[in-house]
């Protein structure tokens, strides 16, 4: 066949692949927002859950989600950034780094249900923490580690060595060069990783049902159980408790995810523009 003809056909076929992919995205977002956004009001966001989700709002879930995200970042960020600093600044590529990288990659591939299983048996039962925000956050933190390590490492590597050398030239120590020059400069990149991990915490369901539980009340401490937005959405959608409520919750979820993606996108852009 005429190569020019195959070229045209190929672009058509491939182009339609792109169209299908993007349509899926657009459809999902519009479908949820169309059915759900009208029901999202200030009351919805600040009211407690009533009748197991049939009426009222989703305030408890918002609090639970925020607590879970904040506490898990609080645990995972120092560990992850510290690991990244170690890998980039304190060693050369050797067996140790290979082992660390390998385990990081492995962790990244483990399905969330296995984290949930582990969290349930280890945190909830074995350590006696019960279904609580704490159990949930610890589990989430473990899940976030690989992402934070990877993005932090990339961010640190992107900072030109010259910056560091300036510090040494001025008589500073390694630690000073790290905390006062490199980390601040790598911060947008590192933050991107953290924000993406927050996105993961917001979306996560399987692991949280078994660790943070599905309590309908606003958690009063990290030992309380609390359902995140995603868990609440899952529960009311599947049990047909209230489709309007389900759509509204999904709308809030989608908007949250959208905002997270937009913020991390702009952060990444600002970062790349500095060093590209």
């Amino acid at each position: 066949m005429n190569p020019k003809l195959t070229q045209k056909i190929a672009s058509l076929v491939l182009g339609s692949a792109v169209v299908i992919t993007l349509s899926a995205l657009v459809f999902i977002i519009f479908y949820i927002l169309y059915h759900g956004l009208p029901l999202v009001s200030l009351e919805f966001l600040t009211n407690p859950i009533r009748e197991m989700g049939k009426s009222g709002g989703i305030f408890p879930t918002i609090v639970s989600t925020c607590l879970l995200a904040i506490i898990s970042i609080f645990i995972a960020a120092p560990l992850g950034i510290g690991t990244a600093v170690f890998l980039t600044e304190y060693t050369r590529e050797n067996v140790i780094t290979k082992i660390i990288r390998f385990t990081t990659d492995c962790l990244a591939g483990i399905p969330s249900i296995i984290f949930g299983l582990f969290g349930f048996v280890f945190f909830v039962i074995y350590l006696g923490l019960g279904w609580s925000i704490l159990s949930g956050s610890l589990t989430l933190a473990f899940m976030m580690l690989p992402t934070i390590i990877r993005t932090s490492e990339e961010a640190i590597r992107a900072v030109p060595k010259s910056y560091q050398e300036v510090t040494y030239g001025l008589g500073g120590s390694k630690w000073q060069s790290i905390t006062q020059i490199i980390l601040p400069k790598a911060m947008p990149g590192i933050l991107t990783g953290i924000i993406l991990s927050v996105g993961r915490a917001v979306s996560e369901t399987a692991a949280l049902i078994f660790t943070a539980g599905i309590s309908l009340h606003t958690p009063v401490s990290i030992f309380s159980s609390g359902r995140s937005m995603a868990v609440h959405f899952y529960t009311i959608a599947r049990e047909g408790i209230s489709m309007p409520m389900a759509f509204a919750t999904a709308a809030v979820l989608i908007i949250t995810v959208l905002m997270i993606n937009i913020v991390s996108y702009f952060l990444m852009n600002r970062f790349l523009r500095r060093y590209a």
Partner: protein
Amino acid sequence: MRFSWKPILLVFLFFLFFYFSFTSRPKLPVRLAGSTAFQPFAEILAETYMAKYPETIIDVQGGGSAVGIMASQQGIVDIGMADMLSLPKDVDHLERVIVARDGIAVIVNRDNKMEDISFETLGKIFSGDIKKWDDLGIKSSAIRVISREDGSGTRKSFDQLVLGKKKLTRDAMFQDSNGTIRESVKNDPNAIGYISIGYLTEDVKPLKIDGYEATNENVINESYKIARPVFLILKSNTSKEARKFLDYMLSSEGQKNIADEGLIPVK
């Protein structure tokens, strides 16, 4: 501009301090978990109780009767809820009490023409001996059996009462709560499933068994035979708070609450 850690750290610490100091001392709530059939009623009872005694917090979760049994046995919750004919040996050593009775309704899709079914035929459908709606003269398609998951008290009770020695058909699909079964049957014209009578809504059609409707009256007068008690299992060393709530559920006020909402009180 020099980027500094301090402001972020300060804001964060302030947030934590603010949060923990403004919430009451981490008092552990009274925790219940288990039967999804009883869960909504436990929730309503909890709401009423908490309105009366605002310092107590009661947490109700679902998960299925087996969760109630497991969680009370392992001490994860104060009270486990289980709706089954009899409790397994695992919890022989734990205190238990019956808080209500509940019937199980067999449901089909609203568009399904069937109204009545015999106990025997029901057993044959769920064991897979009858596979098509044709054999019942309804329409021409396969019967889709939807069952509860293995850990459900409703499932155990249903299997014991309806299937007896037979096994559930291998073609059965599974959902893991009353609500999800109701949803599935509501959406599928060929489905048949079972849910607690307390969960019946107009979305689905309950079948009459041997001529008797699935109502609380018929369960009480024992003409409708598919029913089981709801047990509340106390973990060892239950807290005082938990006992107070338990007493409330068994009190005349609590029992009236249960009756009003659609379950059968035990007293």
